[in-house]
């Protein structure tokens, strides 16, 4: 009888989801309904809304969000994009490929897919349209490029995964580095083919000096990337501390440089950070920064995004607890173990992640499924860090899969292109990401080689 009620509740909340009820409430009412059916105290909701978030490592989430917002407001995203274009502009479709590269670079600072799409998309989409690219393809490029936001470290979702599965967040970050780069290269390859076929984009000559100049202009971005990767890789900082130090550093540099930049940099044409070609070395070193007066706005934007994601974490933790009580993990384990060997079970896990990602937001998807699937993967001998990367790449792909693809919403919002039209143009990128995902699943070394070099092979179970 309970089973029937739980099925009805699940169908009911699916209806709420389709009607556009916020995802937080959709999960929340599933939790309330199931708690009532199985006679489990609702006080658990109250307790978990505190305890589900009571973890120092989770503070990396608001701090990396803040770092991304500070970098964006300081005008560095534009400089990173210009640098990527100076490197890739000699190829057909170079600007679109540079957008994907810029997404990878921004992802190495921010840690959020949607923020990556929004930041790079708002800078590069108008440039691509101006450069003769199809506007739908340009928007799809921004949406797809953003998927690396949560794979290239730092990553919000890796923090949550590590918190849930008791894995080292630093090791997860390192594990995501090569797969994230592979995703970028896979998308750039498809992008090149499409642009080559359609003749999109103007070719510019590659000049090492020009690229070096652009790199100087984006120094703060590179410094932030190196600080995070060095700090985490060497163990000098925990991810939370790395986030705090990077945010603090970007804040100080942004504030200190602002008055100088205002005096010495030419007036911006609407995209902060843009520099004329003849800008001198000192001008390139200067970043636009932000004034004290702008700071509350920047912090509030981070507060808003934190207030969007963290409640989803808390309520998903309650849902996971209930699923565990209902024996969902035992049920799934039994169902999957009958499938056969290593690859059959691994692909079944991947399929579940992909299908769930089409309707669930990445955080609930991770919180609900990771505790169920990770032990199954471990039992067949998949390295936990490798599985985490496989799981989260699948989760990232979910950002551009219908019906619920958050990056498609964001790209649609910033470009004005309808959601479903965007979906069509994203399909080639989806194919590229799935190929990259299969490679990541087939070749564990892509996720673990840097760890092994670091001497952290303790996770090897085989």
């Amino acid at each position, binding site marked *: 009888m309970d089973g029937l009620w739980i099925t009805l509740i699940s169908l009911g909340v699916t209806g709420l989801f389709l009607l556009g009820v916020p995802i937080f409430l959709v999960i929340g009412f599933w939790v309330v309904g199931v708690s009532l059916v199985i006679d489990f105290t609702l006080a658990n909701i109250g307790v978990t809304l505190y305890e589900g*978030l009571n973890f*120092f490592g989770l503070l990396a989430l608001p701090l990396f969000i803040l770092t991304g917002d500070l970098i964006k407001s300081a005008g560095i995203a534009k400089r990173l994009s210009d640098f990527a274009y100076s490197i890739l502009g000699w190829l057909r479709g170079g600007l679109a490929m540079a957008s994907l590269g810029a997404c990878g670079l921004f992802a190495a600072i921010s840690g959020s897919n949607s923020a990556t799409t929004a930041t790079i998309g708002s800078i590069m989409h108008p440039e691509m349209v101006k450069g003769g690219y199809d506007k739908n393809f340009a928007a799809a490029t921004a949406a797809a490029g953003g998927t690396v936001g949560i794979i290239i470290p730092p990553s919000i979702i890796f923090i949550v995964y590590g918190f849930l599965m008791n894995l080292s967040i630093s090791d997860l970050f390192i594990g995501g580095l090569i797969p994230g780069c592979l995703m970028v290269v896979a998308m750039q390859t498809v992008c090149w083919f499409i642009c080559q076929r359609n003749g999109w984009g103007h070719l510019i000559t590659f000049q090492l000096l020009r690229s070096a100049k652009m790199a100087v202009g984006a120094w703060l971005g590179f410094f932030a990337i190196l600080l995070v990767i060095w700090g985490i890789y060497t163990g000098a900082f925990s991810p939370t501390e790395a986030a705090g130090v990077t945010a603090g550093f970007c804040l100080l540099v942004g504030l200190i440089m602002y008055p100088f930049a205002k005096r010495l940099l030419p007036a911006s044409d609407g995209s902060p950070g843009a520099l004329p070609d003849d800008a001198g070395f000192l001008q390139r070193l200067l970043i636009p920064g932000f004034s004290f007066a702008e700071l509350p706005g920047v912090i509030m934007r981070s507060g808003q995004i934190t207030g969007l994601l963290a409640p989803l974490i808390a309520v998903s933790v309650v849902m996971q607890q209930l699923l565990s009580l209902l024996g969902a993990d035992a049920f799934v384990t039994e169902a999957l173990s009958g499938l056969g060997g290593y690859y059959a079970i691994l692909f079944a896990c991947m399929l579940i992640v992909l299908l769930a990602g089409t309707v669930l937001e990445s955080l609930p998807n991770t919180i609900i499924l990771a505790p169920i699937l990770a032990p199954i993967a471990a039992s067949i001998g998949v390295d936990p860090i490798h599985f985490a990367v496989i799981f989260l790449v699948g989760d990232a792909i979910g950002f551009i899969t219908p019906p619920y693809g958050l990056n498609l919403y964001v790209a649609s919002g910033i470009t004005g292109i309808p959601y479903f039209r965007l979906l069509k143009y994203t399909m080639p990128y989806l194919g590229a990401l799935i190929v990259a995902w299969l490679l990541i699943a087939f070749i564990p070394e892509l996720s673990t080689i840097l760890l092994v070099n670091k001497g952290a092979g303790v996770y090897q179970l085989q």
Partner: protein
Amino acid sequence: MVLLRWLDANVEKIFILICYVTMAGIIFVEVFRRFLFNEQVPWSTTVPVYLFLWIVWLGCTYNVKIRAHLRFDELRLRLPYGGQFACLCLDAVLWITFAAIVITYTTEQVWLSYDNFAIVQGTDDVMQWWFYLATPFAWSLLVFRVLQNLWSDYADFRAGRPFNLHANIFGD
């Protein structure tokens, strides 16, 4: 009246800004102190976590205010006008019902912590309930924001104006 209007516009912002800056500031300063002087205050890993609670739940309220919570709105956008208004009313009812549950049970937690004189780990006199209060306070404010939005939707409905249906993911 002016004060009330100002509070209405800024109450979440004030709490979020203070807590965010304090949280990030404590972590930043303490990492440097550890590097330079090899010392760190014991509450540097506990107080920021409690401040995070205030940011999260007031951020949640702020997202209700600006209608930014994540949702799938493709179907709702295609509904007839009356259907859209019904969905907005449904949202309000669901928020208020869930808020009632949260406020009831988190208030219990606050009282429990208050009655037991629970202090934040690593401190001598910082009470836990100051931070636990974040959830019932923010959810009470959330109910107020839901009612404000509902009132504005009702006014739009009466006047036949289009509703604000797109999820406003990146702020107002």
